[in-house]
């Protein structure tokens, strides 16, 4: 099976460079999701960077808008817009808003989002529309684990199984950390598997850094009939930069320009994955 570790490495590099240039932003989960995004945009999604509004494309809703850097880096790397534009992240007049905003015209952005707890409902509406229209495309939604503390997410989880939207696939970034600390200390989430299952979803727990496992999981989600699927993707916050891995202080912090070189050196060491 073809893997996309090199692409994920490139995405991480672009994330670090754009965040250092911006001077603020969310480093930890952006790095942690790079493998999921590399697999999605290089293997799973039917999309066309040269025709972002292609009517038959699969759609990806980023509910956790704060990990915009991983989405932007992935889109630029895939050819949606010039890589140099990543340097405008979070700056006045940029198409790369702190949290994605459709209004600003960046190709490949399906939804303006960032207030937690809203994206899965929107993704559900998209999936319901495709069912009505007998379209065979799929909708993906990226959620954070801490985000699952928002009650509105569970309204969407309940409604998606009720309407049997098997064309909907959620991915939970299960890094176990949020701003105040470990999720299980801030507000217990486990057992996530049991909770999603009891709401009627097809649940797949997967290593969020193992490309083969991710691809298998997405493929199995596509085959599931009558139920939406959630991938509980176990990830490491800050993955690729050893000195900040699993450190929740790096949820919402960007590397300084001085720190960048060291971070890129660390990233280099993880280039081929040990």
């Amino acid at each position, binding site marked *: 099976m073809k893997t996309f570790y090199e692409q994920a490495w490139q995405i991480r590099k672009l994330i670090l460079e754009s965040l250092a240039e911006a001077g603020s932003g969310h480093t930890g989960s952006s790095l942690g999701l790079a493998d999921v995004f590399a697999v999605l945009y290089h293997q799973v999604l039917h999309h066309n960077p040269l025709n972002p509004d292609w009517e038959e494309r699969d759609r990806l*809703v980023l509910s956790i808008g704060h990990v915009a850097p991983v989405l932007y880096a992935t889109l630029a790397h895939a050819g949606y817009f010039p890589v140099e534009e990543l340097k405008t992240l979070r700056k006045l007049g940029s198409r790369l808003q702190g949290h994605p*905003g*459709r*209004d600003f015209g960046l190709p490949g952005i*399906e*939804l*303006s*989002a*960032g*207030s937690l*707890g*809203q*994206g*899965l*409902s*929107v*993704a*559900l*509406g*998209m*999936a*319901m*529309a*495709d069912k*009505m*229209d007998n379209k065979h495309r799929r*909708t993906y939604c990226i959620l954070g684990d801490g985000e699952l503390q928002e*009650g*509105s997410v569970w*309204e*969407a989880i*309940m*409604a998606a199984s*009720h*309407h049997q939207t098997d064309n909907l696939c959620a991915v939970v970034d299960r890094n176990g950390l949020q701003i105040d600390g470990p999720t299980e200390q801030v507000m217990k989430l486990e057992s996530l598997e049991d909770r999603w299952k009891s709401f009627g979803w097809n649940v797949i727990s997967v290593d969020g850094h193992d490309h083969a496992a991710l691809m298998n999981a997405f493929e199995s989600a596509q085959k599931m009939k009558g139920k939406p699927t959630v991938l509980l993707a176990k990830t490491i916050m800050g993955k690729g930069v050893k000195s900040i891995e699993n450190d929740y202080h790096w949820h919402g912090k960007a590397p300084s320009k001085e720190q960048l070189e060291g971070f890129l050196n660390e990233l280099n060491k993880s280039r081929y994955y040990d």
Partner: protein
Amino acid sequence: MTKWINKGSKPTRTGFGEGVRAAGSKNDKIVGLGADITQSVGMHFFAEAYPERFFSLGIAEQNAVGVAAGLALSGKIPVFSTYGVFAAHRAADQIRISLCYNNLHVIIGGAHAGISVGPDGATHQALEDIASLRALPNMTILSPCDATQAFIAVQKAVEALNNPVYIRFGREAVTDFTVEDQHFEIGKAQSMRNGRDLCIIATGHLVWEAIQAAETLADKGIEAAVINMHTIKPLDEDAIITAAQKYEKIVTAEEHQITGGLGSAVAEVLAENSPARLLRIGMPNRFGESGTAEELLAKYQLDAKGIAHQIGSWINS
């Protein structure tokens, strides 16, 4: 001058619901969303006529607004109706971000507006919904005065707009008086009565009460013009400025808190453009309570008699 004639009484929610069904018969992109109170908010007309385009989402308004956004992003025109209190407050963040920031064409029905909801009491009487939604960019707010106008307003919202729309309407049967072939333009106030001494700018159910109040005042030698401000946002500023210059005395009347609603919106326009004496009639910064619609409108001086009384005291003060 907009023609009107007393055609008997009919709930504005029925006008809204029949309007959604009529819009649905002309446009198969329209989909309906229900949050358990389907009949109560007038959506059963559409749900029964087009069951394949109606989705039940349970008592979960936040999700319903998000689902509406997703449907709109897929080319549908969703209509989601619930009580105004739940739409404007429970789902406020979803309306702000998923609908307004994304600027999506979704129609939100805000049922049970005002104190005239009656016996259910304060929890279910939407009296702050306009205040909550009026500040949102991209939002249009409609407040039709009767069932006929509600029927027209929802169809216009579907045909003429491409942004989020909140349509506010009430529970009780009220006088249905505007004509079916009226000129109704979103953002353009309707002149209902000419005057001389002052102008009442009313919205929703209180337009009829204001017309009746003007008749009472006329018996006492006070000639009040009446304007139906059926669109709260975007506000017809020209109509307000013209009225201020002509009458110098302006009264607003609404089934809403005097803070943040039509009264505030008019005050803003007057202060910036053409100062005039202003009396805001509405709920005076307090919650509602149980009682019949009639009793409550009387208690808070929002019926014709109360409006005439408030204006009479004000004009002589």
